[in-house]
């Protein structure tokens, strides 16, 4: 096996693997920027994955499947927003509640509606004209399916929304100093509803990216804790879309590196190889000592204090 082959392989699959992390972590970034920690991402992903798969499977339309995932994610987000904004529930714990609910509910629905593992024909790879034909680069970057491109496109879009729009300004202020935002007539509740629902939608899409674009099956607990890694990546990325992208790529590429290490018969215990992405993520964070504070109001319910 030539080294180029391995490197192309690592980069290509790193990009693919990063896809669900990106959707989920960008969604979480919005939530956390506005001061809400959502630990229920994994549950939302599972429900999104199921909804997307089931609708695509029964209607044969991937677009409808994606729409279903979006809707289910939005509903989960809405519920989470109600619980954390109106009822001012502890965010971390209600997040764990939503995780358990999504984990159980997706499996229950799977059992009731499908009964067994099925497959769908997922979004096909889009070979981008010209770009996809560039020798090495084309193969790495421009021969993926549409949801992979979507995930990477989301990064600049999220950056733009957060930094260049009035909405981004409001989100930032609500996460840093909700009292100040409130005193200027910015509705803290409305902004948080928006970001939490958006987070839910993107988590749902993250799930669908697995079930109808990358893996094209649904199985119980198919995310296997991926949503928790996505939350961790938000911290890694210091609440910035580009940072999240860096984290997701690092984590995924090291994960794919460890798969290659096994294929190349590099003589280390498989467990050590599997640990690599987790260790490296921490190490990178230690080396690049982050000076960035978390949003000041993160996890704090807002109440005018009356």
């Amino acid at each position, binding site marked *: *096996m030539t080294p180029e*082959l391995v490197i*192309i*392989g690592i980069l*290509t*699959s790193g990009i*693919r*693997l990063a896809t*669900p992390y990106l959707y989920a972590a960008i969604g979480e970034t919005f939530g956390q920027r506005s001061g809400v920690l959502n630990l229920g991402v994994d549950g939302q992903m599972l429900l999104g994955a199921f909804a997307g798969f089931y609708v695509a499977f029964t209607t044969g339309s991937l677009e409808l499947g994606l729409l279903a995932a979006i809707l289910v994610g939005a509903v989960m987000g809405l519920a989470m927003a109600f619980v954390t904004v109106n009822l001012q529930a502890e965010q971390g714990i209600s997040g764990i509640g939503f995780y358990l609910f999504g984990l159980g509910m997706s*499996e229950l629905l799977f*059992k009731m509606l499908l*009964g*067994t*593992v*099925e*497959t769908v024909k*997922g979004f096909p790879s889009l070979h981008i004209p010209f770009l996809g034909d560039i020798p090495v680069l084309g193969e790495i970057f421009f021969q993926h399916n549409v949801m992979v491109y979507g995930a990477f496109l989301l990064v600049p879009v999220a950056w733009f929304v957060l930094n260049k729009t009035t909405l981004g300004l409001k989100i930032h202020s609500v996460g840093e100093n909700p009292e100040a935002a409130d005193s200027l007539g910015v509705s803290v509740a409305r902004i948080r509803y928006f970001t939490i629902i958006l987070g839910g939608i993107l988590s749902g899409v993250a799930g669908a990216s*697995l079930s109808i674009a*990358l*893996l*094209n*099956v649904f*199985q*119980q*607990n*198919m*995310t*296997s804790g*991926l949503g928790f890694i996505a939350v961790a990546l938000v911290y890694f990325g210091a609440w910035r879309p580009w940072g999240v992208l860096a984290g997701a790529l690092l984590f995924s590429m090291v*994960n*794919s590196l460890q*798969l*290659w290490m*096994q*294929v190349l*018969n590099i003589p280390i215990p*498989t*467990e050590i190889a*599997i640990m690599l992405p987790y260790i490296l993520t921490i190490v990178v964070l230690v080396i690049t000592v982050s000076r960035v504070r978390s949003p000041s109001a993160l996890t704090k319910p807002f109440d005018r204090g009356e």
Partner: protein
Amino acid sequence: GGAPAEEPAAPVAEEPAAPAEEPAAPAEEPAAEEMMEAFKVAIIMPSSITDLAFSQSMFDALLAVQAEMGGEEAMEIVYSEGMFVVDDAAAAIRDYASEGYNLVIAHGSQYGSSLQEIAPDFPETSFAWGTTLNTFSDDGITNVFAYEANSQEGGYVNGVIAASLSEAGVIGVVGPIEAGDASLYVKGFVAGAEATNPDVVVNVNWIGSFSDVALASEAASTHVAAGADVLTGTAQMVVGAIGVAEENGALWFGTQSSQTSLAPDIVVANQVYDWSVVLDEILALIHEGTYGGEAYTITLANGGLVMDYNSGYTLPDDVKALADAAVAGIIDGSIVIPVE
């Protein structure tokens, strides 16, 4: 020493399965009153009854036996699935036993310790567990059956076919953790492939999880990128890998349950576990009043392991012949699969 003494070479069922009618026969023999009572079976499974893998293989077998016996009136089946927490499983086992179930199957090698503890308290209940051959008879326990699968056998056959069909000479394997049943299957598979084509390269990837579908799929992609045109894998998370095989036109070999439905075009063959062989024998023994002490291995020879060929895939005759020869060799003992 801290380790319990392992089981002696327990008698392993050698003949093929008893005729199907035999377990059904009890209907005539027992007293009429007894007949009214359905035979009650409880099963505890680590995964779900629809995992297309290990758990489903046993549940399907139970359903088959139930059908043979005459449906729900004759045999009542209850199950606890998703019992990956050993502790919860132990509670379930004890509970089923105290509810008067005739046979409690703990379908996972992790449940052994719990059985060892619970079984003595319920001498009237029969227990079964796998995959192992340890019936705890050394500890004086008489009501535990044990069963396991020689999954290396079907693995070997799959390996023979895989090596014959691989044009690239590169084969990829996706496994969960390198232990137990999965490890046996992979060893058999590698042995079969290498025996058929000494130059074949078999790349093995252990992903460290039974549930991470995404990583299993990515492992398959890695194999494809490394040149593999034939893939196989074991445990429930491989459903993700099969999709990758299909997308890349690689062939797939399944094990535990039939995975043909997932990719009818590219699945060549599956090694299917048919535990009904074991269940039949256990039920017969229980009927005679023996509640345990026997260990069973499903093999190609006794029909517990079945090579299930996908009718939708046309296997070249010469390859089919090679496979049949491998099966025959394993059954007659001329092929010995090295598994350490």
